[in-house]
């Protein structure tokens, strides 16, 4: 990492992550209005007030209802989401109503958390029913794009794993960060920006354009500008 505001080795500092996260959330809000917005959750712990000097936190997108892709179109396995045209405009709930195959709503929470060890963002997610009961990986797999499922089948221990959320003391699913810096570097090299550098503001956007696909979340191309 050399000049301020650019990343060239695929890795981020904690401060960079905060900057990149806000830029990502802003672009998402502008270009991806069929989705609810991401919110920044500051790390103020119950028992320990972490100082604001690093403005630490993570990005959260909660209560998304996911539709598993239907049999007819295996090529296009992005999530089919439709904005619900609701007459009740005062409803604060941004949930997008789509049914899955069992006719039962599956809710998903996504957190983008910074890993101080690997110096990259990590995607955590979990699924649950309307009564709050957590979904098992087998059930979640039915909601994932099929290419993710085959990768999962090949490497049980190294792809999506169930681990404790770094801050919430609960089991979440995590997408493994090993290798992130390598493919981010590849992305940087093919980016339009000068040399092999990627501006910090675009880091999470680029990262998510790859990682989001694992859980079936596509981002519109305009976000990459």
């Amino acid at each position, binding site marked *: 990492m050399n000049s301020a505001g650019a990343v060239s080795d695929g890795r981020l500092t904690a401060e960079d992550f905060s900057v990149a996260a806000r830029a990502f959330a802003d672009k998402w809000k502008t270009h991806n209005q069929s989705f609810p917005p991401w919110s920044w959750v500051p790390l103020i*712990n*119950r*028992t*320990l*007030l*972490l*100082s604001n*000097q690093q403005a630490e936190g993570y990005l959260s997108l909660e209560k998304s209802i996911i539709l598993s892709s239907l049999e007819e179109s295996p090529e296009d396995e992005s999530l089919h989401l439709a904005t619900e045209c609701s007459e009740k405009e005062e409803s604060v709930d941004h949930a997008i109503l789509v049914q899955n195959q069992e006719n039962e709503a599956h809710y998903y929470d996504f957190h983008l958390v910074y890993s*101080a*060890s*690997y110096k990259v963002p990590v995607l955590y997610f979990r699924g649950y029913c309307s009564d709050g009961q*957590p979904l098992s990986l087998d059930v979640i797999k039915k909601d994932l794009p099929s290419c993710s499922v085959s990768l999962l089948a090949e490497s049980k*221990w190294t792809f999506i*794993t*169930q*681990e*404790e959320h*770094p*801050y919430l*003391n*609960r*089991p979440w699913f995590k997408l493994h960060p*090993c290798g992130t810096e390598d493919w981010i570097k590849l992305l940087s090299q093919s980016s339009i920006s000068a040399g092999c550098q990627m501006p910090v503001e675009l880091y999470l956007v680029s990262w998510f354009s790859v990682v989001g696909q694992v859980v079936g979340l596509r981002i519109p191309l305009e976000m990459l500008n």
Partner: protein
Amino acid sequence: MANEAVKYVWEGAIPLQINLHKSEVASHPAPPPALVLAPRIGYLPLLIPLIKPYFKDSLPPGEDSIWFDYKGVPLKWYIPTGVLFDLLCAEPERPWNLTIHFRGYPTNILIPCEGEDSVKWNFVNSLKEAQYIINGNCKNVMNMSQSDQEDLWTSVMNGDLDAYTRLSPKLKMATIEDEFSRKASLSSPQSRQGVTETDGAGQNKTARIPVRLYVRSINQNFENLEDVPEMDTWDDISYLNRPVEFLREEGKCFTLRNAIESLLPEFIGDRAQTSGEERSKDGGTEEAEAEGLPEMGEIKLARIQGIEMKLEIPFSWVVNNLMNPEFYLHISVLVKAPQR
């Protein structure tokens, strides 16, 4: 070849007295508790083969999904046993009284455990993360042959320090050395590898050290550990899985206190003090209060491998001698919260 301190760590064990949860006692009379010596650097699920025979005749029919609790708090099986003990028992309890369950696994709180495989995977994963922090990549772990990885894990499971000492050089973990830690490296001299940032003397100027910090924060003053209120839930603990940036400055010793304060910045300051040490010098908190200053937080206690640490110990010595086999240093800290 390993030094004495490391042997002491590997031999550390905690006597456990394990009772079957009363809702699961299906025999009369109820079975007596199992008495087991648990290695500090080990993990609770690895003890199950030793414990199960005590209770198998007393269980109700059905499938087993085993978990432990201490005073109602479900125990996280992926934390080394010694760390659990240091954290949950402010005043050490011997034997440590635990409850075992064979039913009703709390899946909303605990990650599922599929026996030894889960524990091994957790260990290898932590090892990879530690290596990534120390070396900047985890290729040595990834490139280790399957049988070497197996043997390394087996050496940890069996508490076989000799086997571990033979195998761990294959990981080529960089060591930190300064003038305060000269004698204390775990790896043998031939296998030491420096990382890229070295100064002329061949020592590391900056290094990242894998640390897992478990912080229990108490709001009131206490003099004795018995007075520390019991932990009800894991939300009472702040867990920080964050590397310490080890700074080497000419002539200055980077201490354990420096390391902990780098992770807990709100405890830094000339008024941050361990109880007793500086109070005698300047009259302590009464003076501070008289001046109308807010009372700073205090690090009351730092425990590593069951040892109550003096905070002025060189951090390099602590790392080289007290880390766990996966190269993580687990530190349990009891702090008095800053008053605001």
